């Protein structure tokens, strides 16, 4: 069984998609992308000076009025001083800026992927309803993750949403650091205020998908230790495996990993995601340049602590979906065949309690 632990479906990216309005949604996207290096539409030149914000003022206040919008062919576009700019957030093949469940199921069939976990990142919208319908239509294909307002996660309303989605068949919760910060909340992931929320996650038997907690591994470890019955999976689209604070992966010595990450991964209920999207921005398929970064993790922890995810359809900016699987399956041959099977599906099947032949069905 092959399980893709990092998959996206979404309606048109220019819509409100669960935000109060299209305008609010676009403001959020503009803020997130304010430091992207766009291209000037008329000639494709890469522009380095700020075009989305004033370059001085942080937050929404610093954003410029530039008619930021979702265009077509994978692009977000905006206008400033008579010029149109764009950033290719997705591949041009995302013609209508939409990845509906049928389309993404066809991608899975083409590549030979059995099950996909739908990550519920706020950048795509607040998509609990959209996911619920996809899970209902494709119970063997998709596993849904729940989106709540992280900064208010301990409040009754958010916990009620957690319960509602669990009853609809969602199997995990997607908890993002960026959502906390966007809401002005500087709490760490293990902040005691979130206790009631994590208690319910545990009680409902949900998996926790953690996103973006790169500089607080000790806090993630605290949370994981506090809730040993909650499988916790940290997504890793962080441009490679964590090596911040060191600047490189040591090749010398007996110990190669940071101690905080070693302690985190040593916990029985923690997994890391491996995703090729981080590599494609820098390197050409099959991404063997990243082997020195991942190999120390593998050699220390073996194949049981990692799961594979693609980040489709974003991935197609850099390679095909099949290549996004094959780089690991056919080219990272320092990983044993047994461990490849675990990483590509076996571990996720255990985390989500998937039965052979039943796909994503509980």
């Amino acid at each position: 069984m092959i399980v893709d632990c990092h998959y996206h479906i979404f309606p048109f990216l220019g819509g409100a998609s669960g935000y109060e309005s299209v305008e609010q949604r676009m403001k959020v996207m503009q803020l997130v992308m304010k430091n992207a290096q766009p291209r000037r539409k008329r000639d494709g030149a890469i522009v380095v000076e700020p075009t989305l914000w004033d370059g001085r003022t942080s937050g929404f206040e610093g954003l410029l009025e530039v008619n930021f919008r979702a265009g077509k062919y994978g692009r977000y576009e905006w206008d400033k001083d008579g010029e149109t700019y764009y950033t290719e957030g997705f591949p041009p093949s995302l013609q209508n800026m939409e990845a509906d469940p049928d389309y993404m199921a066809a991608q899975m069939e083409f590549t030979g992927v059995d099950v996909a976990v739908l990550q519920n990142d706020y950048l795509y919208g607040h998509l609990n309803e959209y996911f619920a319908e996809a899970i209902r239509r494709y119970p063997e294909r998709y596993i849904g993750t729940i989106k709540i307002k992280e900064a208010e996660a301990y409040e009754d309303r958010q916990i009620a949403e957690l319960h509602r989605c669990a009853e609809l068949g969602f199997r995990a919760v997607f908890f993002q650091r960026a959502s906390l910060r966007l809401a002005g909340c500087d709490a760490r992931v293990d902040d005691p205020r979130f206790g009631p929320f994590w208690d319910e996650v545990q009680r409902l038997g949900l998996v926790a998908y953690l996103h973006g907690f790169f500089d607080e591994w000790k806090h993630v470890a605290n949370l994981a230790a506090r809730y040993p019955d909650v499988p916790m999976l940290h997504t890793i689209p962080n441009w490679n495996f964590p090596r911040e604070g060191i600047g490189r992966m040591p090749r010398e010595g007996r110990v190669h990993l940071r101690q905080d990450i070693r302690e985190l991964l040593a916990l029985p209920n923690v997994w890391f995601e491996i995703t090729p999207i981080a590599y494609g921005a820098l390197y050409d398929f099959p991404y063997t340049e990243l082997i020195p970064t991942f190999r120390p993790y593998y050699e220390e922890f073996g194949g049981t602590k990692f799961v594979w995810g693609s980040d489709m359809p974003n991935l197609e900016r850099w390679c095909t979906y099949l290549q996004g699987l094959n780089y690991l399956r056919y080219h990272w041959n320092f990983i044993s065949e047994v461990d490849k099977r675990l990483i590509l599906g076996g571990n996720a099947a255990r985390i989500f309690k998937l039965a052979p032949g039943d796909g994503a069905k509980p």
Partner: protein
Amino acid sequence: VIVDCHMHIFAPLSGTGGYDSVATHMGYLKGNHSMVVRRERDGAVIDRPIDWPRVTDFRAERLGRYEWTLDGEAYYVQQFSPSLQTMESSPEFVVAQMDHAGVDVSLLQHDTMYGRFHDLFGQAMEKHPGRFVGLLKVEEPRAYQPEQLADLERLAGLGFGGVFFQNGSFADREACPWADDATFDPLWSAVRRLGLMVYLHGTTNYGAILRLVRRYPEINFMTLLPGGRFAREGQRRIPETIRELGSLPNILFEICPISYGFQFEYPYREMHHQIRPLYEELGGGKLCWGSDMPNLERFCTYLQGIDFLRRHCEFIAREDMALILGGNAARVLGLRAR
């Protein structure tokens, strides 16, 4: 300048495609596929022949697929990447792809299966000046007739840069009457007079191609890179006919990655044995590059479709690579640097 000599734009394939009806268009698509047939309910690969005359609901509507039912069972062919969600390749979509990959100009091939798109090609050239060169389509078996020649003249006047000539349009694909039969002289004379180039498609009869190319030295021709097994031993490694053809000044061979993607994984080093003897014996001045987008995305990205050549065929000299990726085509098409 980077020139893609093998690009497709087309209206949604579910439509008429410029033919008189959807049924006519589907008739060109039905059974004309290069990917495997799969049973929809479980994805099983079906290897038995399809009884196409009994298929009455053939459609090309979504997700890169041709779909149909037969005896209550649904089947499909994933002929394009699933990302071709609406089965359309509009000029704007292709320009976005070209911008993303860094391609300057595309030569629009005009294959029968997609449709008859003179209007679409004309609009694309007008709306995106400098980005597209359209190849016009004639009805090949009667291409010498006055109404066909009148079309040729009209379309050349609209800015089409050449003729897409398909051997597959002839009932007898072995005969190649276009090469020697004097009946076709009015066509080639008109092509020569109008200054058009010719893309010869769908034949590996290099003897026929050689005779035609030799007879019309003022016309520039393109055709697909010869395939098959080339000798690894000996001083000469490519067949004499191909050597002779390649020695003529008015022929270019298109290197296209899509045929490699069927069998191999990017960066297609397995195909160096095919490209290298031709390059070493004929030189960089005889080759050009084409992608076959958007079909290519079944196997690799557009950028990879260039990089397999640009970054991984290290045996090609830098100046020759510039010729192959655009210089030769620019000369043939009369392009100037942007």
